[in-house]
């Protein structure tokens, strides 16, 4: 099973229709001129990329957006219900929202979302802030992993503050039962991301980065020269997950490019699906295991 661990469904037809909301999503995510996509179109794209399932990530930045939630947990649930064989849903809460814990409990217990997405820069927190501890507690209680945005962010109002891989080392040290992913391989700090993964088996990453050149060229630079391909193929092969950050990057070309880096076939299979299954504690036959 091939899984894309990092997809933003903000422009899927079933959760659009309100022009103002769509414009807000374009502006806040800083993704333009792409229109909205029918689910059939998205499935066609997944099929061409050889992807079986996608993890859908919402965005709750409500305390800095007058209470407006960009993509809500309920919208993610709605999309998953429309295609439970193709989608796995994650939750999002704004850590500064006084009802964040209540919303997260609902997301896990009622909406049955499989993990939590957080963006330290856009949501204005540091991974070691005290307000985060009860959120981490809840994730551990429900055995749900976290995907943290890490490295460069192209979203509006988001710098890379609090998004350096080293910002997460104490969390990795302190909570060995908490599985979390430093998204985008922490680009451009890929060596630092590799450093953390080498020491901490609860730290994962994804390949959702394509900031320069073609997918083939960027992946060659990032995964064979910035760090040697052997680092992934020999040491980090159980912690790297295939992700595309769709719609910002290119699902089809990235899926092809990851196979052309000289990794062992067994490593490619880990990256393209088996690591995500382990990260999610996901049972393809019955959902959560």
């Amino acid at each position: 099973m091939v899984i894309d661990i990092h997809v933003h469904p903000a422009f899927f037809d079933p959760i659009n229709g309100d022009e103002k909301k769509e414009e807000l999503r374009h502006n806040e995510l800083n993704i333009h001129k792409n229109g909205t996509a029918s689910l059939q179109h998205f499935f066609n794209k997944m099929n061409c990329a050889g992807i079986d399932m996608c993890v859908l990530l919402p965005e709750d930045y409500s305390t800095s957006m007058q209470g407006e939630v960009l993509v809500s947990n309920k919208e993610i649930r709605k999309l998953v219900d429309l295609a439970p064989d193709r989608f796995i849903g994650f939750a999002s809460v704004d850590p500064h929202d006084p009802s964040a814990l209540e919303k997260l409990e609902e997301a896990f217990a009622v909406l049955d979302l499989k993990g939590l997405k957080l963006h330290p820069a856009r949501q204005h927190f540091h991974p070691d802030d005290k307000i985060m501890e009860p959120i981490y507690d809840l994730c551990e209680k429900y055995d749900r992993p976290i995907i943290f945005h890490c490295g460069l962010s192209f979203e509006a109002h988001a710098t890379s503050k609090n998004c350096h891989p080293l910002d997460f080392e104490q969390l990795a040290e302190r909570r060995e039962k908490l599985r979390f992913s430093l998204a985008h391989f922490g680009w451009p700090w890929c060596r630092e991301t590799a450093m953390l993964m080498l020491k901490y088996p609860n730290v994962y990453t994804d390949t959702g980065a394509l900031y320069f050149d073609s997918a083939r060229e960027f992946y060659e630079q990032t995964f064979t020269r910035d760090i040697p391909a052997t680092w992934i193929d020999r040491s980090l092969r159980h912690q790297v997950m295939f992700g595309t950050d769709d719609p910002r990057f290119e699902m089809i070309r990235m899926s092809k490019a990851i196979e052309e880096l000289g990794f062992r076939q067994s490593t490619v299979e880990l990256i393209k699906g088996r690591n995500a299954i382990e990260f999610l504690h996901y049972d393809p036959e019955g959902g959560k295991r």
Partner: protein
Amino acid sequence: MIKVIPMDIMTDQYNQYLIITEDVRKIVAASGIRNGMVTVETRHTTTGISVNEPLECLQSDVDVFLSRIIPEDAPYSHCHMLRDYGSTGGNPTGHLKAMIVGNHCHFPLIDGKLIGGSAQDIWFCEFDGPSQRTINIIIEGE
């Protein structure tokens, strides 16, 4: 009189060739215009419109030919972050193939019928799919 009628096409392959002659004929017949000129034009820059025989072998030859002269792994300039899109542009092959194939075709319309050779069909050519596409059927006449 001029009528511009949009026609939606959803492609499901990266490169794909669809014969759309019958769809165009139906739209022209419903337009009410009987004599004049019909233009079929794509609205996109990574798709093409062409006229050729609707044979699978020819579609294969066209696809192989275009892929040979415009390979996926050549070092193109149009592979970088586009700030006004907020996304990476990585479809130079689609743009180049579209330039070669062209973006429209014309047929005379006489007594309500498109006039063309027996081997001529209208091809919609997808070069950056899958995608949701729209073409214009432009009918000029009376």
